[in-house]
């Protein structure tokens, strides 16, 4: 079980480290079960002790449409964040989401959408384009302010995180099952973690060459992989 394997080192860490209130950077190395580094994984740390709700940051988030794909593939935003959907292509896109966390529709537009979309509810929002079926992206609306998305080397780094006990949540678009949340003590001595997620690796959505038949093919191809 990946969870139990993960628990043992975490418990060991908790044992050796004394509690402190200093804040630091916590890094997580995400791999798949095979030990390969895994990008696009969301790591969210939720403090177990009730703390004063941190104010939403005014950080700017955007989900671009460039070269007929969404970029980034996975975007993690804090609860209540505003996300822009700038269209950098010359073609129009029709961005939509039927996800429970946020349903919206940006009908055929070019350039900057009229206004950013605000994501009030934590959860996962699957984003598609009605014109380009293969275009797919995910916006992870985190309830906690401590979250990061792993880069291509599988490293996710969360800055300014106070020492303390956290529940760690992991998510990846290709995950085969929801990893069970675990708790972890974070302090100076214990600011790094390696986790693995059971995934089935897929190709990230990419822009197919222009052409009618090929696009049709991609559509069925996509369908085949959407299990």
């Amino acid at each position, binding site marked *: 079980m990946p969870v139990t394997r993960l628990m043992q080192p975490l418990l060991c860490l908790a044992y050796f480290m004394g509690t402190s209130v200093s804040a630091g950077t916590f890094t997580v190395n995400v791999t798949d079960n095979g030990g390969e580094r895994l990008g696009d994984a969301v790591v969210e740390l939720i403090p177990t002790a009730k703390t004063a709700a941190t104010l939403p940051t005014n950080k700017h988030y955007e989900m671009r449409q460039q070269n007929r794909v969404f970029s980034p593939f996975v975007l993690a935003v804090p609860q209540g964040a505003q996300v822009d959907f700038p269209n950098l292509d010359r073609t129009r896109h*029709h961005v*939509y989401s*039927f996800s429970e966390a946020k*349903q919206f529709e940006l009908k055929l537009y070019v350039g900057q959408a009229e206004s950013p979309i605000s994501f009030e509810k934590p959860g996962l929002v*699957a*984003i*598609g*384009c*009605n014109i380009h*079926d293969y*275009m*797919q992206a995910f916006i992870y609306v985190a309830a906690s302010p401590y979250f990061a998305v792993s880069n291509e080397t599988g490293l996710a780094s969360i800055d300014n995180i106070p020492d303390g006990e956290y529940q760690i949540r992991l998510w990846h678009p290709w995950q085969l099952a929801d990893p069970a949340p675990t708790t972890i003590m974070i302090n100076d001595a214990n600011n790094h973690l390696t986790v693995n997620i059971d995934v089935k690796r897929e190709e990230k959505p990419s822009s197919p060459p222009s052409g009618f038949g090929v696009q049709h093919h991609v*559509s*069925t191809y*996509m*369908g085949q992989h*959407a*299990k």
Partner: protein
Amino acid sequence: MPNSFRSRLIIAFLLILTLMQLTTALFVLTAMQRDYRLQQTQNLKIGSNVFVEMLSNRSEQLNQSLSILSADFGFKRAIATGEQDTISSVLANHGRRINADAVMLLSPDGKLLSSSLQGLSAADISELFALTKNRSTGFEIFNYNHNSYQFVLQPVNAPRLIAWVGMGFSMDHNVAEQAKSITGIDISFINQSGRVDIVSTLPATEQQQILANITQIAQADASVNDDIPTGYLSTSISLDKSNINQWAVLHQSNIKWQQNYDALRNKMLIVFALTCLLTFLIAAWFAGSLSRPIYALANFARKIGQGENPHPIKDAPAELQVLVDTLSVMRDNIESREEDLVYQSQHDNLTGLYNRAAAKQQLGPLLTQMLGSIVMIDIKNFRHLNNIIGFANADNLLVLFASRLESLSPTAALISRLDGDSFLLLFQPSISSAQLDAYIQQLTKPFSIEGSKISVSVRVGIVELSSDYEANDIDTIIRHAEIAVNQARTESLGIAIYQQGEDERYLRELMIIRDLPVALSHGQFHLVYQPKVDIHTNRCDSAETLIRWQHPQLGFIPPDEFIRLAENSGNISIISDWVLNTAITQLALWWAQGICIKVAINLSAHDLTNAQLPQDINRLLTDNNLPIEALSIEVTEGAVMKDAQAVIAVLQQFRQMGIAIAIDDFGTGHSSLAYLKLLPVNEVKIDRSFIKDIHTDATDLMIVDTSIRLIKGLNLSVVAEGVESLKGIEILRQLDCDIVQGYVYSKPLKAAEFIAWQHNFNQSSVAVNPQDNEH
């Protein structure tokens, strides 16, 4: 002729041919049937594959259609709403777009979200959901409420998978027709879930047959059922892998190839019939060419068997020609042997003349006109001649005699040797008396046998042919010739011509001989008594019994005649017995009445050789209380001479018994006087031929006188027979004769008359009745 070579050959030909033809037909038809079936099965397999391919293609097409449908944003959005009514209506709407018969929506984890099919069970749903896992293989058939649906499912991505949309297309008659139009094969869809439903391109009756044989049809894949329904090959494809309740059954019609098969079979039948006919003709011709000469040969042999001389067969096959030639040679040999046999059977071996049988045969055709003379020639005393000159010489003599018969003229129309020394000749025209004399003279010239001159004399009997003879009465003619020859014995010239009537005497004798035994038992015989008168005392105390026969047709028959015939035919003993018994019975009667008459009976030569006779007579006399002297016997000289020794022995017995014996007919036989001395007789009776004319003939008188003296000299008593005149009595009395018998006293009388006469005679002593003198 079922057994003939011809029919056997034909049957054999036909049998072989039929066997070959049938075998060929069997192989060809079987191969063809197998071939056709293979072809049909192949068709069926191809059809199956095409059908499966068709369903797969259909699935693919439907999938594509559905995928386009499922990618529709409105559809996705409607489904994403989660509103049941919206979802149902959008499903119905989109289902109609691609003419689906059933639509449903499943969640990504296999829960039923919406369905146009009511009341799906969990199993149905999981079955349908399972289809999402394995979607690359062909087609999927789903059973719902006894209907089969081809189902396709497509994911609904928005953009992640939010649902599975499934659409079903009923496997209905249209699908079947479509499949038929592609494969050219009839198709039935069978749904066995709970009840059996069928959708088929076949007519209703065939559908019923399929339903009736459903268990046979709905079986393992790839097997081919023959004749279900009739006239079709069927194979089944299981449509659902799990329940095996749904089948597609493909039916390949046999009709076309059955027609081909029938056509071929009919052609083979025609060929068979024609070949049979041809074979029959050839076999018949062949057998005929073989059997015709055989029949000809058989006919040839049969004709030979019947004694004909058929034309020899020339053009028979070589094998048979040998037989023909052999038969011809055989026929010739048989003919020559037959001729020999006929010749031998018709000819006398010695002389080469016709024998008796052949003579009779030959006379038939010669005597159609009854003209000419039959001459029978006997060599006199040939047996005697045989003894003298020997058999070989006698045979030579016969041969010479025969050749002389043939050489003399007039030439006889027929010369034959009847037996030993008897020859029969036919002269046509008749031979005259002078010619015959000359002929006989030439014939009886001495023959030269081994240097000796041998003379023969002949007896000749002649029958002059006339219309009195029946044309075919050869036997009578020959008998008459024999009678004539017998007659010739007595003739001096040795030639006698048959006189009409001589034959009647012959027949009369035959009749007498035949009737004799019957006449005795029928009382046609009776005895008469002729008085014997002692001329010294002029008394009559004895008589000679004589037998008389009154024949119903022939009248009075003289005793000489029938006794001679009885002696010749060996019947004399029964006559003697009868005479003896009758006389003794009469004697017994008289003696019982006190009339003491002595009676003499005549015994034949045959009786006198019977050594038992004296005792028999003695017993008879004793049995009848008669003295020995009551009976005496008379025997003729001739009878004694036959077998003198035996007769004398018997006579001696009589003599010893005391029975008087008289010699009858003295002077007529060939006896010598020496016998008179030997014979134990008491009395001698001088024959009437000497007595009859004694009073006029001096020679007779002298003979009688001498005889009486001789007899008296031997101390025997003398009886004169046949005295007819009183003068005769007187003379005989002077000659010292003892007893007289004759008509001068009385003719032989019947018993009662005799007694009356005897009484009268003895009473009147010497009175002589002048009436008696007349006889």
